[in-house]
């Protein structure tokens, strides 16, 4: 039986935790939920479902980090533009 087990899919738990903490959006929680599902599904022998949960955990973690990075960049571009405008007017 042992040899029939397919390799364990990555649960992306660390990625999920990083996404929860880094980008202030609760989407990271969704990623953690999928990460916990990967482990329990794999332990119960539902390998296909575990693989799917693994993909979901990765996607949601990356989406969460992506939104955070975009938000961050957006704010920096806005402030950058404001500072540049102020500098070029000599009012800064």
């Amino acid at each position: 039986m042992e040899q029939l087990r397919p390799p364990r899919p990555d649960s992306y738990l660390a990625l999920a935790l990083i996404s929860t903490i880094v980008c202030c959006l609760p989407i990271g929680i969704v990623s953690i939920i999928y990460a916990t599902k990967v482990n329990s599904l794999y332990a119960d022998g539902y390998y296909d479902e575990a693989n799917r949960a693994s993909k979901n955990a990765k996607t949601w973690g990356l989406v969460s980090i992506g939104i955070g990075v975009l938000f961050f960049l957006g704010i920096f571009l806005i402030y950058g533009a404001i500072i540049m405008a102020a500098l070029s007017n000599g009012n800064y």
Partner: protein
Amino acid sequence: MEITKFKLPIIIIGVLAFFGVLALYIYWSPSETNIFPKCPFYSVTGIYCPGCGSQRAAHQILNGHIFEGIRHNYLIGLLAIVLVYQALVFIINNVLNKRITNLLHKSKVASGILIVVILFWILRNINMFPFTELAP
């Protein structure tokens, strides 16, 4: 092979951007300047999210004030433990060629972390003494 050609510049840009942002967090405190984005979830709902305070924490930790930093967001401590543990298990299994089981692969540990995060989220929003310590 084709993919790695495209991936390399992205990785290099990502690493440079990461260190650039780290430098920003070393020199400017998020509680004193406005250049860092406020948490969008908190701005919209007025409720702290599990990630609130991580920017202030990053500033403090990068300046060596580890305990003041962790007090802004205790989840950073949990994240640090998880990352160090992952790295240790990876080193033991791949470099020393041992086979120790990764506790993070146990479903109970993973669900435990989920419960801790959600409890942390709820408790840090309670405006009473022992819980205010958890607020950012």
